[in-house]
């Protein structure tokens, strides 16, 4: 964590009362260190042919904008009003009732009034009114309208990259106005003039080239899986080799690359590998791919078009390998894209077949068009059909709570399956308060491409609402493990927990599954996947 990040007690001094006498239009936004992310580097935009690649810094007065940037943005605005009913409607129908205001984790954690979803949207609506409504053209400020100028554009950029597209506000909005939709739209506009953040632009360029956000090349990807294979062998005594890019497999497995890259995601990855090995004898025929080695989609945080360009690899690779269907790993926005966009972007996947579990024979009817199944659904079905031999007491050292990741919750609705699995692989499960889970779940504070390092203060603020709920169950039930089904969660929660609730660790669900799974011919398991002693095995470790 950056040394400059203020301490929790500093950050905790949050005032949620906006200024009394000065309206928000009267004060230009101040771009603060620790909150903003670095601007996109030209090479990353060039690689994917995004417009106006250049060196620029958010702190500079001059952002080196193209001369006709206003026309570009206005033209882009109009074009999108004609292409997205959502945007047009959401510009027109907000009544500013304020129901969304205190629902945003960034407002809760910062008190910055522009982080109230309604006001973040008004930053854009005000320009809409000025350019596209009669009232706004005639009355200006009195109609809530203002001109698009450089300060406004900077304000957009600053606050659009302080929204994690988590959709919590849209649950509470009486008209379903979705700030995520407005942010997606607004970010498309900033990208028209070359303004992105590098933490999004770099993964996009990487993913385009190497197949994954982290830029892991095929041989390195294999190295990583090999490394995990060795680790697993150490723990279980069984060598669980995985197939890569194998033609003719029945199923293609795609997971976020974060899972192969850093702890604790890697343990989840080992969990997948162990599950696949376990099922091999039961008839699972599955391959991983280095070309489609990314489940996530940072293109989605750039533009619909970029999302589609990156997403295309999944069906293309499925077709090339000749698989019947695709299995997807634990990830958040990945599943919003897969659920609500993929088939529309790049379907229909006619060369694939309606997914059927080769182990249980269950037809995944809810995926009969996209042909892509969530591994949580897949595993829940296995457990329901008694296909896994599990010893949940191996997770008895864990008091688990479950964080519903925003997108699987509010962009899909996969709420019960993960809980079903958790309840079958561990004995101590405690829910956080109802206002903070399921469809009302709080974001980790670092989603939608904001999991950079330079904006650590923003992330700690944004994650406060989630951390506060974790702290509650930690103090009440002794919760020491935060489970989630999102790779970004696994990447960012360790920092967040260390900052707000230091005694709580982070895990994916398949890590716990793998710990509990009893393999035929395994050696006596004394440690979990992290190499820490299993409950009751502490002595043996010492010996």
């Amino acid at each position, binding site marked *: 964590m950056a040394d400059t990040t203020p301490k929790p007690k500093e950050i905790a001094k*949050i005032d949620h009362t906006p200024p009394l006498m000065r*309206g928000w239009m009267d004060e230009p936004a101040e771009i603060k260190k620790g909150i903003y992310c670095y601007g996109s580097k030209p090479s990353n935009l060039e690689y994917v042919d995004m417009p106006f690649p250049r060196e620029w810094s958010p702190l500079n007065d001059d952002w080196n904008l193209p001369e006709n940037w206003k026309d570009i943005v206005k033209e882009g605005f109009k074009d999108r009003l004609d292409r997205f009913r959502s945007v047009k409607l959401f510009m027109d129908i907000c009544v500013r009732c304020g129901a969304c205001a205190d629902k945003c984790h960034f407002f*809760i954690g910062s008190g910055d009034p522009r982080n109230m979803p309604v006001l973040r949207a008004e930053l854009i609506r005000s320009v809409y009114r000025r350019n596209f409504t009669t009232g706004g053209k005639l009355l200006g400020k009195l109609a809530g309208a203002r001109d698009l100028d450089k300060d406004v554009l900077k304000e957009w950029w600053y606050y659009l990259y302080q929204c994690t597209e988590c959709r919590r506000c849209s649950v509470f909005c*009486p*008209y379903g106005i979705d700030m995520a939709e407005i942010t997606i739209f607004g970010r498309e506009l900033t990208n028209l003039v070359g303004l992105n953040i590098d933490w999004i632009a770099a993964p996009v360029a990487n993913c385009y080239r*190497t197949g994954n956000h982290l830029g892991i090349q095929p041989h390195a990807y*294999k190295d990583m899986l090999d490394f995990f294979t060795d680790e697993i062998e150490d723990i279980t005594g069984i060598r669980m080799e995985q197939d*890569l890019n194998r033609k003719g497999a029945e199923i293609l497995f795609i997971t976020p690359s974060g899972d192969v890259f850093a702890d604790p995601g890697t343990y989840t990855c080992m969990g997948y590998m162990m599950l696949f090995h376990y099922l091999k004898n039961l008839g699972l025929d599955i391959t991983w791919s280095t070309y489609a080695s990314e489940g996530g989609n940072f293109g989605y945080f750039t533009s619909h078009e970029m999302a589609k360009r990156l997403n295309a690899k999944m069906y293309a690779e499925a077709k090339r390998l000749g698989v019947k269907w695709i299995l997807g790993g634990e990830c958040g926005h990945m599943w919003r894209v897969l659920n609500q966009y993929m088939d529309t972007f790049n379907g229909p996947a006619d060369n694939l077949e309606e997914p059927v579990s080769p182990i249980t024979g269950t037809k995944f009817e809810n995926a009969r068009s996209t042909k892509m199944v969530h591994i949580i659904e897949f595993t829940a079905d296995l457990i329901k059909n008694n296909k896994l031999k599990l010893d949940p007491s191996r997770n008895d050292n864990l008091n688990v709570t479950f964080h519903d990741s925003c997108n699987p919750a509010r962009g899909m*609705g996969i709420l019960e399956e993960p809980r079903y699995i958790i309840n079958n692989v561990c004995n101590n499960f405690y829910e956080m308060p109802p206002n903070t889970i399921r469809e009302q779940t709080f974001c980790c504070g670092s989603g939608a491409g904001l999991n950079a390092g330079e904006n650590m203060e923003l992330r700690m603020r944004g994650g406060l609402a989630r951390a506060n709920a974790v702290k509650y169950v930690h103090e009440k039930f002794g919760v020491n493990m935060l489970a989630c089904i999102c790779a970004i969660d696994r990447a960012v929660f360790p920092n967040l927990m260390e900052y707000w609730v230091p005694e709580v660790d982070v895990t994916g669900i398949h890590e716990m599954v793998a710990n509990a799974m009893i393999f035929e011919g395994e050696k006596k398991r004394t440690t979990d996947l992290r190499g820490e002693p299993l409950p009751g095995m502490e002595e043996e470790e010492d010996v």
Partner: protein
Amino acid sequence: MNFIVSILFSGFAFSVVVLIPWIGVGAFDLRVFFGVIVPYAAMATFFVGIVVRVIDWARSPVPFRIPTTAGQGWSFPWIKSNPIDNPKGMGGVIVRMLFEVLLFRSLFRNTSLEYRRTGGLPKIDYEWEKWLWLSALVFHWSFLVVFLRHFRFFMEPIPGFVHLLENLDGFLQLGVLPFNGLGVPGVYITDGLLLAAVTYLFLRRIYISQVRYISLPADYFPLLLIIGLGLSGVLMRYFLRVDITAVKELAIGLFKFSPKVPDGIGVLFFIHLFILCVLIAYFPFSKLMHFIGVFLSPTRNLANNNRFVRHVNPWNYPVATHTYEEYEDEFREHMVEAGIPVEKGVEPKEEDKEVPETSQKE
């Protein structure tokens, strides 16, 4: 622009709306203008404006099916799904929309943030907050009942449902304050509820700091119009009676397109009518369009069935992708070396053969 400017501006606009008919009828006796021309113009603006706006919305397609899922989706038979908050098909969507439109279900979820610090560290709670939902619900339903009750002035004979509503609405059988004498009509509950709710909605814009900060003149103005509309109506009904027979003659004439303005209608009625005209003429250009917009909202009116029913984007266009061939061309040698299957083998070149051996020796 702060909230005082916003309130002053909308208050000023509202005052003008009241003064125009007051002076127009009171001083210049422009009864036909305010009794016939303005109402027709306002109604035309209302209907044409709404149609134009809705067509404009509808012209923009819905490229992606993006419902906000607020409950368990449909997956396995053994997992209980939430067919209303996460609808699988049209039936669920209809129920969801009905809940939304009739009962303001999303607003019902509202809570209020309670932020405290204990020992310098944050402690966050989410408190019960149903006042916004309650006042919104009371306001909209009361407005509807009041509107329907007005059919007694437009229609002859008075339709049965109006009598029914009047009886229900007036069941408390309250007379007005005793000093007003006999013959005073019973008090309608909705008159009071409407005014109370709309006043609350106005006041909360001022005393809730966050709502105060985001409120625009466009938020205060319609509330003032509705308060003015309600007050002038209440005044007419309970205190400063107008000639109801004459008013009804005017109203029926308007709806039969043979308008005439009978004598004996007081200025207060023209103020009431003019406020209404401004409100409906303002309607299509304002946030009041939420009334229709909510039906078109793609996060609410679509089923979460993307994975089993494909949604088609009418403007979907081909995009540049990085193909597998390009990928393999870049990484083929590494892949072969690592034992990853490839489509094309590595073409052996003379110098390539030499290089690894020499490098190994080093």
